[in-house]
């Protein structure tokens, strides 16, 4: 072969191309649907959706009730629709209980409200340690919890995904939803961190 042929993709890339072309050819997926999904997850869906829900729950007691009662419905109210068959449950941190989310089997994650999971969420160390030693996992993320706070670990499944509602930081009493959203990090909604303190916001 001369060197003027097209750049040869890696074996993995070729496997992905083979799979896609077979699935399209057999009518199992539509190319337009694939493009739409990639566009959505790359650009439109992300942890800002979840942060919006959390900030609303902090400022609107009725919305908070609805979110805790049925998070899928509350998210849909805001235009964040889950994929078919997925239910979203919001779990609220309190001074007594801190919630942490993991998927011990694969990497089930509330895509609709958090976008795509970080690499560590899909790793074996996180999957096992979140369950066996959640307190030290939290410490590594910089969230030191007082001894008396109980940690509740939620194991996601294909049917049930979790969104942690962190505690509202002190000193934000007169903040707007837009301002509050910036304190709600993706990690806080997985439960490996607390919401940012106001002074930690970048100016």
């Amino acid at each position, binding site marked *: 072969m001369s060197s003027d042929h*097209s750049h040869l993709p890696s*074996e993995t890339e070729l496997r992905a191309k083979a799979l896609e072309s077979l699935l399209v050819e057999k009518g*199992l997926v539509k190319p337009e649907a694939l493009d739409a999904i990639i566009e959505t997850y790359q650009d439109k869906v992300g942890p800002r959706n979840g942060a919006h829900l959390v900030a609303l729950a902090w400022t609107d007691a009725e919305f908070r009730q609805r979110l805790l009662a049925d998070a899928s419905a509350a998210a849909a109210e805001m235009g964040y629709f889950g994929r078919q068959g997925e239910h979203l449950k919001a779990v609220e941190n309190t001074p007594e209980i801190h919630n942490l989310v993991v998927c011990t*089997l*694969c990497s089930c994650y509330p895509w609709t409200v958090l976008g795509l999971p970080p690499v560590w969420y899909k790793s074996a160390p996180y999957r096992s340690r979140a369950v066996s030693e959640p307190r030290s996992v939290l410490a590594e993320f910089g969230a030191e919890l007082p001894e008396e706070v109980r940690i509740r670990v939620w194991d996601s499944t294909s049917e049930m995904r979790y969104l942690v509602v962190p505690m509202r930081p002190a000193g934000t009493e007169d903040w707007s939803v837009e301002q509050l959203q910036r304190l709600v990090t993706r990690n806080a909604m997985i439960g*490996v961190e607390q919401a940012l303190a106001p002074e930690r916001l970048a100016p």
Partner: protein
Amino acid sequence: MANSPVSGSGFREPEGPAFRAPWEAQVFALVCALQDAGKLSPAEWSALLGEEIRLAKERGDPDLGDTYYVHCLAALEKWLSEKNFAAHDEIGQRIADWRAAYLRTPHGRPVELR
């Protein structure tokens, strides 16, 4: 997040694009599209992927999250042949066809299967 003072935990990663390579997005989209079209149930996918991750670890994959989409790819290939949508050989042949297509297509021209 960039704000976490995590040290040596292995849980840190830079905030970056959702996908590290186009093929990762391609595989992710295939999984979603099959689920949206009702061809693959979320429970079925979770079981398949969980099994694939378990097998990969047995084979020595440290499974640090960076091979996640490779596991997805392998699980999809298995699903395709288990459901008799495409035999193992057909998938292998298609990979070979794409390789050949790249090798015969001059640089700068669209690569197409024959």
